[in-house]
């Protein structure tokens, strides 16, 4: 089942307006639904109906297109951006959208008082902006930053009313006022978020219909249990489920009454980062042994029921400048590497030892997500055959962050979705190694001059082809360095009732269901 183009349907007059839609998402309810104030997986899903971004990433071409900005220009040195803004846009509190508003948002995001957990870091090079005229703004960066525009397309950069920023910044968290197609009715924590249509809306991104949203009411329910969430769709309690569990994807595709939308999340695949700053993974051979010795494809297929693609490197296949590499699986090679590395002897439990010490790796992690635990168990079992003892523990999240700060781990499991290959810089540049006052994202603590310079150049260039070449080299280099074991490219899978739900799509800048074009054919 597919989705007919919204435009066609509208012309044929089949669209039903004023319907309502209920979507069940997972239990990862963000503490804040303000775009800039959360780092949560579901933040954009919840803030997108309320707010629009300055630029729009075309879901098909992944090109950046105008949205709240109609035009932009980048200076040759990559330090100055000039935006021309769309006219006639108003926030739902009546405040007009203009250069002042854009400036207010940028300044607000980087203000430490906002305590932005992520957005501020994404635009860290932002220095200042100047209102040229009511509808144009120049933005100055401190360093060239090729990803700047692209991150602005993510839901984390939805624009909020400058009036709210000035008068009631404390309210933004729970009830952001944006220019979006919907306004917030009620956020019942732990249960649901309810939206109602913003009738004045008329500035949907390119490729969407004109005018206000079709839906009158839109509700997102938090359904933490995987099985109950999917079951809620099957039993008609919700119209759409987000985050369809892997074990249900096949059934959903088979079910004639259901349709499935899926998208490979751009960014970094789900991976285990290996702490290269301490034994045993400070030894390249040990890292390479684990990377090649584990049958990642088998694990991914088994745990995710064959629904997810095994990662081929450190960018997911849907990420810009992704280049396909191969990481061969060979137990023999892995064993040879380990022998070479001096872990030739084995103890009574079959684990390798060196100088009487067992080859052990600590994996402090969280068990909140079932498939991650499952992957851990399977890798653990395979690693045991290689002679590597992987110890899994579940510290509190507090301890996890402390361990991260102290570098007290051998393996750190995680995933990072973002629509720019700059994720490689975030994850592998030595600039992002944890310091005393901040946990850096380079949890592998990789320090490689080649990688550093490739990623820095790619970050600073304004030339797309050169950027692609640089990232291509970086990806190959990284695989040689084996700072992480990439498992799978994350899939965002949404299933819905075919008969009832139409026009639903997935936003790609930061994947989330996009309901502006959606309509429901009954009640």
């Amino acid at each position: 089942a597919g989705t007919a183009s919204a435009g066609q349907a509208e012309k044929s007059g089949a669209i039903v307006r004023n319907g309502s839609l209920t979507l069940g998402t997972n239990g990862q309810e963000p503490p804040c639904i303000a775009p800039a104030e959360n780092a949560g997986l579901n933040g954009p899903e919840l803030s997108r109906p309320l707010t629009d971004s300055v630029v729009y990433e075309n879901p098909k071409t992944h090109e950046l297109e105008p949205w709240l900005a109609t035009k932009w220009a980048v200076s040759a040195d990559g330090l100055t951006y000039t935006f021309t803004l769309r006219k006639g846009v108003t926030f739902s509190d009546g405040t007009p959208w203009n250069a002042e508003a854009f400036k207010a948002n940028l300044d607000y995001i980087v203000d430490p008082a906002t305590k932005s957990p992520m957005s501020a870091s994404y635009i860290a090079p932002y220095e200042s902006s100047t209102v040229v005229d009511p509808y144009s703004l120049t933005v100055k960066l401190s360093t060239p930053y090729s990803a700047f525009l692209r991150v602005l397309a993510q839901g984390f950069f939805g624009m909020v009313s400058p009036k709210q920023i000035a008068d009631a910044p404390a309210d933004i968290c729970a009830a952001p006022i944006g220019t979006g197609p919907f306004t917030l009715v009620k956020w019942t924590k732990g249960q649901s978020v309810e939206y109602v249509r913003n009738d004045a809306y008329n500035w949907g991104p390119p490729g969407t219909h004109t005018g206000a949203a079709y839906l009158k009411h839109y509700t997102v329910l938090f359904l933490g249990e995987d099985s109950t969430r999917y079951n809620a769709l099957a039993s008609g309690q919700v119209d759409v489920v987000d985050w369809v569990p892997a074990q249900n994807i096949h059934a959903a595709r088979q079910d004639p009454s259901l349709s499935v939308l899926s998208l490979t999340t751009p960014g970094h695949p789900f991976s285990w980062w290996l702490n290269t700053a301490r034994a045993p993974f400070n030894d390249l051979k040990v890292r390479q042994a684990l990377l090649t010795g584990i049958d990642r494809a088998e694990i991914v297929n088994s745990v995710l029921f064959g629904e997810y693609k095994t990662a081929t490197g450190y960018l997911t296949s849907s990420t810009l400048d992704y280049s396909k590499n191969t990481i061969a699986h060979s137990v023999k090679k892995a064993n040879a590497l380990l022998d070479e590395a001096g872990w030739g002897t084995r103890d009574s439990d079959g684990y390798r030892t060196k100088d009487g010490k067992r080859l052990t790796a600590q994996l402090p992690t969280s068990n909140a997500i079932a498939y991650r635990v499952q992957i851990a168990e399977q890798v653990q079992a395979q690693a045991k055959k290689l002679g590597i003892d992987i110890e899994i523990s579940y510290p509190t999240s507090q301890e996890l962050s402390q361990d991260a700060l102290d570098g007290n781990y051998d393996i750190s499991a995680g995933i990072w979705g973002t629509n720019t290959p700059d994720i490689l810089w975030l994850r592998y540049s030595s600039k992002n190694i944890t310091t005393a006052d901040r946990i850096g994202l380079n949890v592998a603590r990789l320090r490689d001059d080649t990688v550093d310079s490739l990623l820095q150049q790619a970050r600073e260039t304004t030339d797309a082809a050169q950027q692609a070449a640089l990232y291509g080299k970086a990806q190959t280099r990284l695989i040689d360095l084996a700072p992480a074991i990439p498992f799978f490219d994350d899939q965002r899978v949404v299933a819905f009732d075919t008969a009832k739900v139409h026009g639903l799509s997935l936003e790609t800048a930061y994947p989330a269901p996009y309901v502006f074009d959606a309509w429901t054919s009954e009640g």
Partner: protein
Amino acid sequence: MAAARVRRVAGAIGLRLGGAVLVVWGAATLAFLAIYLTPGDPAYAVVGGTDANPSPAVLAQIRAEYGFDQPWYVQYGSYLWRLAHGDLGTSYRLREPVATAIGQQLGGTVQLALAAGLLAVVLAIVVALLTAHRRPWIRGVSSSADLVLASMPSFWLGILLLSAFSYGLHLLPAIGNRGWQSLVLPAVTLALPLAAVLTQVLRNALEEVLEEPFITSARARGLSDTAVRLRHAMRHALIPLATMTGYLLGGLLGGTVVTETLFSRQGLGRLLLTAVNGKDLPVVIAIVVLSAVVYMVVNLAIDLVYPLIDPRLRRLA
């Protein structure tokens, strides 16, 4: 004389309140210490854990704003000071007053706890009255059922009920807080083990009472068996039932943690679990304090109920 009585009762209640304040203070302190002593930087709790990528400036701002850079006694002092003024503080994670956060979740939990408590008590009374002191096989069946139900982990019971009624028969919704239908399974899940324990207590009490001479003497008056149970025995058995109910009601909050998780219900239990996981100190302490208060209130209420049941406590005190 009435005045003296009032004064005595007031005095007793005052004493209890004093004790309650002490207990609440202790609970708050314990929770504060517990969380304070956990290793780790609470600033990360504010920005959302390791999945965030906060800038150093943001972290510094948070530490200053929340006083994490202060020595513990200053943090503790200001915490107690605010608590004494009824201010439970601001949640780290939710960035809103704890009172608001709890207020939003309270309804669901109270609804669930009340429904479960009521269901459990009613079930227990009915079953115990019907089965106490009956033919051996009736007792045997009933007490085996009690034993098994009381031994079941409630989440397993929940899983069984879900499998049967939600996935199997599609009779009742598995999730959420909407409508009475969504309350049925969680309430039953929570209530059945409670009911089983209460039934045991009540049945034992009834059987003990039914052996009492005054029961024989009531029968000798020509009272029917039902009348004997309802008019004489039941009232006596209510005392251990009240004690046990008080004890179990206090523990209901613990039970809701699991039940709310299983049924994706909004409520304090889940709020607590996320707060514990995210080290949201103000929320954890507030819930602990709240539960201590509930415990004290329930026990006070039960203490006030006893004299209503047993006139000796009223008249001879």
